[in-house]
């Protein structure tokens, strides 16, 4: 009987979910329409000259042209490649140092308070340092990404591991889990909710840092389009690039990180 109840409540949930998604979609469309109408109105009122404040249709034209000439696709590819490489480095370094911090307690304590300061440090402030030490290249940009967000992953690994309820470790050892199976089969999954929060924050920091670094350090990429747009007073290009940056950020967060986090949370039965 309990099973039956569970089933009906589940199907009701999924039906509700679909309905909620449809209303969400309608709300989003209305919201976008309002923004575009407001944009068009400001354009008509001619507060600014047309080259400084292009209309939505001009921006759309530029957008299409940037895609056709291959400028935007190359920029998206380059920026995406830097993001994936940088974020992979962030994850590897963050988790590795986090695990070392758990293992060596005194190092962990010192590093934890030190990196709280570094976590709040503006990533853009690393750019001059990176330019002089590494140079105006992809490695310099990767360095800025790592410095911006490895600390989030590190600290969440550290706190996630330290807050594992001892009873899990006791039970796992009693059932014969040792070393690697304990690390991979118990400690990592047990630390996952905390780790996911850190990973999602790190993704957001990485994205900020990457675009910032590209404006100052790159000749190709979405950030670089922003820089050249301001140098050559091409507001339509700036707008097109900004919209692309916004959409990529939204899509990656909603479709990847938010979903991953939700999956962990629903498994654990944590409030979402």
């Amino acid at each position: 009987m309990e099973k039956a109840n569970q089933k009906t409540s589940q199907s009701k949930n999924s039906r509700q979910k679909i309905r909620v998604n449809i209303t969400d979609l309608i709300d989003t469309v209305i919201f976008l329409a309002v923004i575009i109408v407001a944009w068009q109105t400001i354009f008509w009122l001619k507060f600014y000259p047309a080259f400084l404040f292009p209309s939505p249709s001009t921006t759309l034209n530029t957008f299409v042209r940037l895609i056709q000439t291959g400028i935007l696709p190359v920029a998206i590819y380059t920026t995406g490649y830097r993001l994936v490489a940088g974020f992979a480095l962030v994850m590897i370094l963050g988790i590795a140092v986090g695990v070392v911090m758990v293992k060596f307690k005194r190092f962990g304590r010192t590093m934890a308070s030190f990196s709280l300061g570094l976590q709040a440090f503006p990533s853009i402030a690393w750019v001059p340092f990176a330019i002089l030490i590494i140079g105006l290249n992809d490695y310099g940009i990767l360095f800025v990404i790592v410095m911006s967000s490895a600390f989030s992953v590190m600290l969440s690994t550290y706190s996630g591991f330290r807050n594992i309820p001892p009873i899990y470790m006791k039970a796992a050892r009693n059932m014969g889990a040792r070393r690697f199976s304990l690390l991979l089969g118990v400690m990592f999954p047990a630390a996952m909710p905390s780790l996911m929060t850190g990973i999602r924050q790190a993704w957001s920091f990485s994205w900020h840092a990457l675009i910032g670094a590209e404006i100052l350090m790159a000749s190709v990429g979405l950030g670089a389009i922003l820089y050249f747009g301001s140098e050559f007073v091409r507001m339509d290009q700036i707008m097109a690039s900004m919209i692309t940056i916004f959409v990529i950020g939204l899509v990656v967060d909603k479709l990847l990180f938010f979903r991953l986090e939700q999956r962990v949370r629903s498994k654990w039965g944590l409030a979402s």
Partner: protein
Amino acid sequence: MNLREYMGSIGTKSILQISKLEKSYLGNNGDGQRTLPVLNDINLEVGEGEFLTVIGPSGCGKTTLLNIIAGLEGYDSGDVVLTGHSVPSSGQDIVMIFQEDALFPWLNVQENVEFGLKQRHVSKEVRKKTAEQYIKMVGLTSFAGSFLHQLSGGMKQRVAIARGLALNPRILLMDEPFGALDAKNRDILQRQIQEIHGQTKKTIIFVTHDVREAVCLGDRVVLLTHTPTRIKRQFVIDRPRPRRSEDPALRGLTNAVLRDLKEEGDFGESEPENITE
């Protein structure tokens, strides 16, 4: 049957011998460190297939005793021997079921029960079959794919029992496993653990602070004293199974255990009106 006859009957199929076990903790009583003796000369023999319940006043070192048997904690002196091996030799011969919720929330019921088998590198098919068998034994087949937050407290403890049994341990240790459950669930589980004991013939050492539970479940009840803990007295519960904790036939024995426990200044979990009967 008196205790001597009873012990004689388990003599040849003894599975665990504890002799002269001593354990103390380093404590702090305000003016510096000192040792606090917890276990003092514990001598206990457990027979193969026996359902042994251990009861004592709260804070008397019941859990410490179980932890030592499970190899989760060391001891100062004495011997703890599992027919031939000295404990701790291999943890999996002895599996512990905890009072707290020790199931893994990132795994579903089936995966939780398979966890210990996975540590032993048991093949996937065998793992699946074994887990299904024990999940069925505790009556949770339709919840095999559920996650823990979808289960009640009683169901979780049934999963924990299945997880312990799946490892086919020689001894199953249970540390107040029903302590956090409501009366109805405790009743169901008390019946179920007796059925499981009947089916599997597992040796079970069951710690509780509920006298009625101890008498209801145990073939023998071991009553511990306050710290430093010794064995105060043992009771043979020679009654047919399955038993129910409210069974009037158990009342006399329950009161006998309660009287001795009362001398240790602890009434256990049972309501005081039971004592005056």
